């Protein structure tokens, strides 16, 4: 305990000295730091903050030091997060490499691959994208068809991916490919390659929110060095599934009103008072007031369940059955929250751009549209319910 307290003091001192003041203010979305070869830094302090954090490995606090990570224990990492929250520090780096690929590489990659890729992820030098879904393989992900042939000294990749987040901005891709067309799950491999390779093309897709965070990605005779295969040939599905767990954990946090929920517009009850009005301190519509209470109560119950799951894990009871519901419940809750914000704000939450609407209002409109994807990406709600039915409840296949 004493050592942990000392770590807290040292961390606090270091953060005080090294976190630039502008990095302790709320972050506009365009200042999010994704790193990569073509990174831009609208606020130069962002780059400074990233480099300082990366120099200590604190962009990936629990990864081993030999791969550039912070080498912290879970307890130390928790202290670091607490101290970062205490000064309201912005995330130094947002990265699929850190959230999804890194943990999978640590578990499944060989030494050479870890040494090659992990330090660059920690420093934000290489930005990664995820090549999973295909036009014909969405919920049935294991039905993917992107062909990967062994050409002796290299692999040859042909096919198409879709919903590749930021493929047009990413430097490398971690990609599921078919290496045995005669099998389903046992014919999939996990491949890494450079998006600059000849034959790779990424085309952004315009979404209902107006943004284009996803791409269609085409591979035409892309040559990939054989050393870029992670794990064994045809054993990629195990890695793919583990990585999906990390992705789902990342997405399920959204129901708590954290990242992007409401876009700084204020609490539901304040929004209701501002946009609908109040009588004697009560929201003027009993129906809206009741809807707000239902939403707040369910959010609180969900937050308590996440905490309980974390405590159970800490007490060595393993990830309880409760964790299997997080992706489903968190995303449905987040969608409901945006529908409620629309009801509370009326036509002020239905603007698209330009005069008549402030930034917060436009952000609600766009985020409402974006939230619809939460229960589709990373495994649809229906797939999550299948998982609970079969794995947790032990119900048989039809």
């Amino acid at each position, binding site marked *: 305990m004493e050592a942990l307290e000392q770590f807290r003091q040292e961390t606090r001192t270091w953060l005080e000295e090294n976190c630039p003041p502008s990095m302790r203010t709320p972050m506009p979305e365009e200042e999010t730091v994704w790193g990569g070869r073509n990174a831009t830094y609208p606020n130069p302090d962002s780059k400074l903050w990233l480099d300082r954090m990366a120099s200590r490995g604190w962009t990936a606090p629990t990864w081993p030091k030999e791969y550039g990570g912070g080498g912290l224990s879970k307890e130390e990492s928790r202290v670091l997060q607490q101290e970062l929250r205490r000064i309201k520090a912005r995330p130094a780096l947002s990265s699929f490499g850190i959230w999804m690929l890194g943990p999978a590489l640590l578990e499944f990659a060989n030494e050479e691959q870890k040494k090659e890729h992990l330090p660059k992820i920690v420093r934000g030098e290489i930005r990664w994208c995820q090549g999973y879904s295909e036009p014909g393989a969405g919920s049935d992900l294991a039905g993917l068809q992107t062909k990967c042939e062994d050409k002796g000294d290299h692999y040859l990749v042909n096919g198409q991916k879709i919903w590749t987040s930021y493929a047009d901005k990413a430097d490398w891709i971690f990609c599921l490919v078919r290496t045995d067309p005669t099998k389903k799950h046992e014919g999939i491999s996990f491949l890494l390659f450079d998006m600059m390779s000849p034959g790779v093309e990424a085309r952004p897709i315009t979404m209902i929110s107006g943004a284009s965070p996803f791409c269609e990605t085409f591979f035409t005779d892309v040559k990939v060095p054989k050393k870029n295969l992670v794990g064994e040939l045809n054993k990629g599905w195990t890695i793919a599934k583990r990585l999906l767990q990390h992705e789902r954990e990342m997405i399920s946090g959204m129901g708590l009103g954290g990242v992007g929920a409401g876009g700084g517009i204020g609490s539901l009850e304040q929004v209701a008072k501002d946009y609908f009005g109040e009588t004697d301190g009560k929201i003027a519509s009993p129906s809206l007031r*009741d809807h707000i209470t239902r939403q707040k109560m*369910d959010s609180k*119950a969900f937050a*308590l*369940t996440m905490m309980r799951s974390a405590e159970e894990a800490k007490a060595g009871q393993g990830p309880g059955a409760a964790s299997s519901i997080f992706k489903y419940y968190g995303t449905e809750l987040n969608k409901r929250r945006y529908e409620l914000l629309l009801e509370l704000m009326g036509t002020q939450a239905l603007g698209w751009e330009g005069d008549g609407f402030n930034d917060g209002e436009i952000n609600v409109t766009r985020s409402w549209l974006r939230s619809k994807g939460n229960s589709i990406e990373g495994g649809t709600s229906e797939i999550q319910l299948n998982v609970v*039915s079969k794995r*947790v409840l032990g119900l*048989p296949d*039809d």
Partner: protein
Amino acid sequence: MALVLTEEQQLLRDTATQFFQERLPVANLRKLRDTRDAVGFDRDAWKEMADLGFAGIMISEKYGGTDFGPVGLGLVLEQAGRTLAASPLVSTVLLGGSAVQLAGNATQRQDILSAIAAGDHLMALALEEGPHHNPTKITTKAVAAGSSYRITGSKTFVLDGHVADQLVVVARTSGDSTDRSGITLFLVDPKTDGVKITRTLMVDSRNAANIEFDNVTVPGSAVLGSIDGGNDVLDQVLDIARIGLSAEMLGLVQQTFDVTLAYLKERKQFGKVIGSFQALQHRMAVLFAEIELCRSVVLDALSALEERRNEVPQIASLAKARLSDISTLMTNEGLQMHGGMGMTDQFDVGLYMKRARVAAASFGDSNFHRERYAALEGY
């Protein structure tokens, strides 16, 4: 927050599980119902519960209790909920005992709490006056006459009212019928002249009564707590009852879920078990999620009581609202998934549904508690 159980608590839970499964299974409630039992619960079993320390679980060792605290009590109630065990836990431990603990003077505590812990003393709270929970709208009057009081009014839905050895009567000593202040609690012997008790048979086969007070004279020493200041105590007592009842409902909901899941794996139609159909699988998965959230709020509410957190009223309303809604949903779904068999008296699922509705209506349904939550949160 203590969302994970200690070893001692796990032990208590195991003891309670075994006791209710073996001593008070659902068959016990059926027998009480079918024989129109005059008491409405098994007195011997209650004595055994007292011996196991369940009756004195909230009572300090000084008065012969076990002082396991709210989390311990919640574990016992959850197991009682699983088998629909009829017992005076709610009336005597959650309501009567808490009221005396919080508001009683030294003599009242000494006399009453040790008798409760020993399983020798049954209590009932005479509060409600209409079909909806409304702890502030009190028209029953208590008028001072010298050093005594005369109580007049009608009470309904008094849990265990027909067997109680002592009533806690909520009466108005000043103000008009909707004032928050002006309420006083009285300890009343049900055998006093002018007290007329009518047992009411409820759908859940558990005990309740209507009670008339016609100019009932009680001495000044019958006042529990302060004159006109009963509301604060009542609020605290009711929150304890709401949280305890939520724990009982958690057991009821979990049991209905477990029994339904087992039925889905056994019942066959179209040549396969019906649990293989996605239309049923997804509904069960959603219920599973809702019940996990129920467990979290009940555990948090119990630890809020234990830690005497300021937010006990909010979390009590959250727990009672969620458990009332989800117990309605779960028992409706459970019955539907049992098909025609669920409609028969032979199957237990109907009994769980009946108990769920009475528990949901006790001390505020989800509408009451959402309204209260919003008011507490200031919107």
